[in-house]
Structures are given as C-alpha cells and as structure tokens.
C-alpha cells in the first residue's frame, strides 16, 4: 500500500477532476503545454508502485478512438496542429485516469459518491454491478468454452445464432439469480 493508495478517495477524485477540467479548458493553440504534466504523472506512478507496462497495455484499448478522431481533425486548416494537441491532451488525461483507477477501489469510490448525495438507486446499482460483473463475465466465458467444446464446425450464421442464444440464456440465469439475491436480502431485513 503506497501513500497514493492510502490517500482519501474524495481527494484523489477531486484533484483529478480539477486537473482534467483545467486540461479541457486549455485553449486549443496551447494544448501541447499539457505534455508538461507527464513528468509529475510519471513520479506519481512510481510513488504508487504501478507498472508502466500494465498502464500502457490498458491505455491501448482507447487507441482506435483516439487515433480515429485525431486523424479526422487533419482535414481542417492547420489540422495537424489541432490533431497533435488533441492527442497530447487525450494521452495525458488517459494517464491521469489510469492512475486514479488503479489506486482507488470501487468501495471507496462508492462511499465518496454516497457522501456527495448521488441518489441511492444509482449507488446501489453501481455496487451490485461491481460485485456481480466479474461473476457474470466468468459465466459468459464458461459458456463460451462449453460451446466451443460442443461445436465441431459451424457456419458464420451459426456462430451469430449461438452467440445470441447464449446471451439470452445468460440473461435468464441473471434474472433468476437476481430474484434469489432479492429474496435473500429481504429475508435478512434488507431493502
């Protein structure tokens, strides 16, 4: 546990929001200045004991959207300046967000959101979602493995049909699980 991990979630959230807001408010012609934030962010990463490779790997998920939109702005006059600036801003923001995400657990985040008077319906949904998402993703992967084991050969249409079918089965199982969870919560005096 580094000092960054132990810092209160509200502080981290507020600081990142303020930084990202300032970054967004930066005028377009000086957006390359945002690159000055890279050394402090690297320092933060080192302090938190995070791996650069992991951060980079997870940031690569956003690369298609980033490059796509940045290449679209090439069509404007002085487009390459705009697109370089956009890329710099986006990469710095992504870096900040990655540090925030990997040092703040969901439970801390939820506590902060509740303190900020976010409606309980939404907070409850986020809490249940964070608890059950890994379970459901596991179940989906198990179903996919079983499907691959049973299917010897199939056409493309067959692939689509089986995919839709297994998602439907997943939904039905999800609903019956939710009913059981609801029953269990209520029998223990919950909502």
């Amino acid at each position: 546990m580094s000092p960054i991990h132990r810092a209160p979630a509200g502080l981290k959230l507020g600081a990142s929001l303020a930084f990202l807001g300032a970054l967004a408010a930066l005028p377009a012609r000086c957006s390359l200045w945002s690159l000055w934030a890279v050394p402090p962010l690297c320092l933060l990463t080192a302090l938190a004991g995070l791996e650069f490779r992991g951060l980079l790997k997870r940031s690569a998920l956003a690369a298609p959207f980033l490059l796509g939109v940045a290449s679209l702005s090439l069509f404007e006059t002085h487009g390459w300046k705009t697109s370089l600036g956009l890329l710099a801003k986006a990469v710095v923001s992504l870096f900040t967000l990655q540090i925030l995400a990997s040092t703040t657990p969901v439970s801390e985040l939820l506590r902060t959101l509740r303190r900020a008077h976010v409606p309980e319906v939404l907070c409850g949904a986020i809490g249940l979602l964070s608890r059950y998402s890994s379970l459901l993703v596991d179940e989906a992967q198990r179903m996919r493995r079983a499907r691959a084991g049973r299917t010897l050969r199939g056409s493309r249409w067959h692939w689509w049909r089986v995919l839709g079918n297994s998602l439907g089965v997943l939904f039905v199982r999800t609903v019956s699980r939710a009913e059981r969870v609801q029953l269990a919560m209520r029998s223990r005096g919950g909502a």
Partner: protein
Amino acid sequence: MHIPDGFLSARVALGYGALSAVGVGAACYRLRAQRERGGSALLGVCAAFVFAAQMVNFPIAAGTSGHLVGSALAAALLGLPGALIAMTAVLVLQCFVFADGGVFALGANVFNMGLVSCTVGYCCYRLSCGSSPSPTRRVASVAFAGWCATIAGAASCAGQLSLSGAAPLPIVLPAMLGVHALIGIGEAVISALVVASILRLRPELLEGGADLESRGAASAVYAGLGLALSVAALLAPLGYAAPDGFSRVAAALGLQPSARPPMLAPFLTHGIPGVVSGVLATVLVGCIGTLLLFGSCWLLALVLLPSRRRSTDPDASPVAVESSG
C-alpha cells in the same frame, strides 16, 4: 463510442454533464416508486448483464470489430428509467475501474449511450411493437430499435466532437455514422437473437413493467421534447458561431433571398429586446423555435389523426374492440 478525456472542451463537457445529471435524476425519481415493490437487486444484476454482454466482440468489415452497446436491449428488457440507470452504472464503472471513457467526459458519454440511445431505442421499440405484439414482431422491433439507438448515439457523439472543435462536423458526422451503421447491424442481430431466446425460455420477462407502460406514449413524447430542446439549446450557439453552414446549404438549394427563418431572424441577430443578447439569446431563440415546431407538429397530429385519438379514449375503446371483434 466512449469519448476519452481531452477531446471535449470544458463548455461542452459541463453542458452535457448537466443534461445527463437531470436525466439520470429523473430516472432515479421514477424508479424510487417502483423500488418499493421490490426489484432493486434486479437493476444492479441486469447492469452486470449489460456489462458482460459488452465484452462480446463481433467482427465487422475490414478486420475491425465492434462490441455491443446494449442500450436498446436494456430499454426493451428493463423499461426506460431502468435502462438509463443500468447504462449509467456500467459507464461509471468502466470509467473508474477500466479507465474506458473519460471522467470529465462522463456526462457526455452518459448522454450519448444512456439518454439518447435508451430514449431512441425505447421509443422505436414501443412504437414498432404496438400494444400486443406477436413474437416475430417483437424480435423485429428490437432489431430496429438496436440499429436506430446505435446511429442516434453516434450522431450525438459526432455533434459533441464538432461542438468542441475537435473535428469539423461535415467530416466527423459521416465518418461516425458510416462506422456505426455497420456496428448497428451487429447490435441489431445480437439484440434480436437475445430477445428471441428469452421469448423461448421465459417470455414473461419481456412483459415486465407492462403496468408502467400505460403512460409510455405520453412520457416518450415528453422525453422526445426534452431531448429536442436540449439539442437546440446546445447546438444553437454553434449556428451562431458559424452561420455560413446554413447559408451554404441555402445557396445550394437556391434559397438565397430568404436564407434566414423570417420570424426569428431579428432575434438571432440582435438579441431579444430587453432580455439578453449574444449566446444566451441564441439558446433562448433555439428553444422557442423548437417549442413552436413541436406545438405545430402536435396540432397537425391532432387534426390529421382524429380516429386514433378517439380509440385511446378509455370509455370508447371497449365498444370499438367489441364491434371490431
């Protein structure tokens, strides 16, 4: 479609954040009554289902792949407020845990994939479904709703990008719509197949919330009006800043002499007398114009569809059904 931070200007991000906060707050308010009858767990666990379904990648043209957004599917399964809350929860979790989509751009992302996609998906689904749909019609309308929701979300995303000056609208709009027209086909096929298999396994799940849907048409109209107003309010300053787009289209259509809307034009150029001028006046004029347009469409619908109105009258409908049966 998840917009990362850095692409949206502060004004756009804050504006759409406020709009999304209003929409999500309204959905929470609607759900509070429903929640007292049980079903709080259903929402969270269904949000987890949407999350898991978004993990499914399907191939589209030229080696790229898209993934399910699931807002139309959620709208068909959970109803409009439930779908909105589930999508918001999924987006918040993706943003804070996987850094997918920005924190500062969260409002804009909730607007695109939650408010716009769910509302459009829900309206398309309800309107094409009718009151007592056959299974085939239900599956077909889910597919239609899925495609429309994807396209609508992409259009709204393109609008936000061009409003923040990231890319010009004539380029970003066709690009986004072109890619998402293909992704939307995948979304439509998967949503339809999912609904078909739910219909086979537990059809009563799709009837859920039927008692809530009696007011569905009216609330869909109000949601559409709110959406149109907000788009007008946010897009009007763009027209104010870059009027040459309109005049170019007008010139191409040969409408040069009266290129401006005659009634509202003096307000647009000079501000509303005694109120404000500049951007705020443009926003106000945009809203007033939308309201006028909505009112005239409403009047036209009332005049043109008298029989429809009579049949929804609660006293008259049993007689009509009996006589037709």
